[in-house]
């Protein structure tokens, strides 16, 4: 029997009751009039309606089960965080303007015109409290992909100039300088050189022709530079003809995250053109979740036709190389658990690759309870980690992740997304947590078996 010391409230319960939604802050960009903002939002909501979204928006039975899958609702019990509610305005726009019965909805005023106040209110729901992780899409009995529609609704919000400032600034910097953290080609080259020295590894740069174009995430270049050395070690050891290019190195896509399709396309085209220029057969993406979504599944659609090269996440590349025997690794005597980045695993379909790699490493691999494709999100995806005012909420939902990790009692925690790693690091600091997020790729790079030939 447990005895509870009655003098103190149980912390777990206290927290639930104590939760207050963060103070509303409605950011605005540009100097459009109120009417213009509403008009832009509506216009760009409507642009996204196709057969897929229309069936989704018409098919919802309002059963509310998606709320049980979303970390924001689960951790706060705030009904506004119900996934389908986050796209309520998007849905209203559809019913009023496009749906098969739009005429009646307008005629009888069943669906009221969307107002600026509502759009402002929804900024918090579409950005601060959705990581586009897609967990809700898996619970919906109607099979509705709610997460995909959050991304689409963001297009309208961006055009209306109604997105969180930090995300807007980051996306703008990415569009202007080519990197969300303002990393110029010179800075990239500098840091590559530093890593090449530090790790005594050859890092090919700006080779004219190569089979593989490797790219990086600014978060790695800035915060986890070892990733660059690790990528080089692995591609070298696999005997690959490869290169980094200073005219196309940035894999993150803040255009996509913020909802600006033009910027999204620009960022993607830069990589695509570079890959074509050097005659690459393969574009290897870094440890970054949304970069995978942006290039692996949306890249060709930005290009407007199939890409003339293959696109792989670095974990897929490593898994292939290990399975084909081009790369060999030493056994690692550790217990490991793996955090699946939502955009790579659940929504991207590359769930098996890291598991193959861990098998080759011979670790004691411990799957998290309800892990893999049903993983809880790190809480920082979808651009949320850049939004400062969302920190409190983000830390709050991270509790789910901590429980999931701790249940495995593994010695090492690994992932293959620098953005996840960043939000794990931040939450670790906030909670003084024991686990430090590590990189799967770096574990591979540190344990390469040198092949004698």
């Amino acid at each position, binding site marked *: 029997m447990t005895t509870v010391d009655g003098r103190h409230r149980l912390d777990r319960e206290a927290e639930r009751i104590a939760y207050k939604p963060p103070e509303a802050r409605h950011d605005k960009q540009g100097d459009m009039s109120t009417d213009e903002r509403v008009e832009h939002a509506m216009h760009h909501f409507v642009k996204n309606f196709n057969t897929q979204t229309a069936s*989704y928006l018409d*098919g919802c039975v309002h059963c509310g089960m998606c709320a049980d899958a979303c970390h924001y609702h689960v951790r706060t019990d705030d009904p506004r965080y119900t996934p389908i509610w986050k796209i309520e305005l998007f849905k209203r726009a559809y019913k009023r303007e496009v749906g098969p019965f739009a005429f009646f909805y307008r005629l009888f005023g069943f669906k009221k015109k969307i107002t600026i106040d509502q759009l402002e209110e929804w900024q918090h729901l579409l950005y601060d409290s959705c990581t586009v992780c897609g967990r809700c899409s898996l*619970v919906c009995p109607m099979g509705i992909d709610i997460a995909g529609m959050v991304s689409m609704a963001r297009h309208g919000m961006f055009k209306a100039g109604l997105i969180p400032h930090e995300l807007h600034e980051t996306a703008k910097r990415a569009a202007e300088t080519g990197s969300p953290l303002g990393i110029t080609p010179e800075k990239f080259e500098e840091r590559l050189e530093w890593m090449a020295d530090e790790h005594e590894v050859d890092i090919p740069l700006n080779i004219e022709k190569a089979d593989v174009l490797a790219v990086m995430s600014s978060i790695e270049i800035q915060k986890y530079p070892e990733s660059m050395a690790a990528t080089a070690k692995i591609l070298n050891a696999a005997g690959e003809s490869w290169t980094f290019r200073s005219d196309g190195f940035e894999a993150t896509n803040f255009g996509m995250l913020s909802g600006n399709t033009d910027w999204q396309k620009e960022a993607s085209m830069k990589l695509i053109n570079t890959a074509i220029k050097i005659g690459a057969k393969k574009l290897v993406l870094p440890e970054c979740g949304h970069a995978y979504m942006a290039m692996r599944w949306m890249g060709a659609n930005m290009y407007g036709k199939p890409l003339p090269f293959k696109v792989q996440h670095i974990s897929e590349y490593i898994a292939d190389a290990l399975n084909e025997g081009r790369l060999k690794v030493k056994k690692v005597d550790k217990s490991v658990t793996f955090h699946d980045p939502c955009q790579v695993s659940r929504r991207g*379909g590359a769930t098996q690759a890291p598991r193959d790699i861990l098998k080759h490493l011979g670790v004691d691999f411990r799957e998290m309870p309800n892990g893999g494709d049903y993983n809880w999100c790190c809480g920082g995806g979808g651009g949320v980690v850049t939004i400062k005012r969302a920190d409190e909420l983000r830390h709050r939902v991270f509790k789910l992740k901590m429980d999931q990790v701790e249940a495995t009692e593994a010695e090492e925690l690994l992932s293959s997304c620098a953005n996840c790693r960043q939000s794990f690091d931040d939450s670790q600091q906030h909670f003084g947590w024991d686990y430090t997020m590590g990189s799967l790729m770096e574990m591979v790079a540190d344990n390469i078996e040198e092949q004698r030939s």
Partner: protein
Amino acid sequence: MDLLEFARGPALQTAAYILVAGTIWRIVGIVMLKEKADYSEPRGRGGFFAALKVIWTRAFTAEPFKKATMYPKMMAYVMHIGLFATIFLFTPHIVFFEGWMGFDWPGLPNSVIFFIGVATVISGVALLVRRMTSPVLKMISNFDDYFSWFVTMLPLITGLLIPVRVLFQYEDLLAIHILSVALLLIWLPFGKLGHAFLVFITRGTTGMVFERRGART
């Protein structure tokens, strides 16, 4: 023409036409919208069979969600199976369908149907209570949700009242029953009850898109 004749004749017939026309209109309205081509290199198989797969698999709840969604899922299953059984396995109904389609099939004993009918209404009420009390459902529900519930329950309740014969005569009760069915058929394609056919499109498209990626569906 008395009420029963009206209900059985023009009322039911008109309702059936509206059902068909409304359904076609809604499906066409959705399918007519532009669909962008997907040029990404597929990992898995999309297409028709992927759609069929998810139409089937989404009938079941994935393990991680079982605990949280158990109650509404059970209630919804009882309600839907109950609806199916009372409509299609009740002998007088089968006689009606036979007159219309020319063939029949075995039904369940009337007492069993009566029992199922009651269970269906109870599960429906349970879902309504949940809708009116859960903070999430209170927030996302609208007129459509309540009205759709009402027109679905009406034929069940009026049907169950026929053998009880309170207040009205058999013929009038039957006429009211049939009129309530007409109301259901008329409303079905327009509001959320459209999910009865839309579910194939929603699950189907998700199946095609995500199976193609080799991702979890």
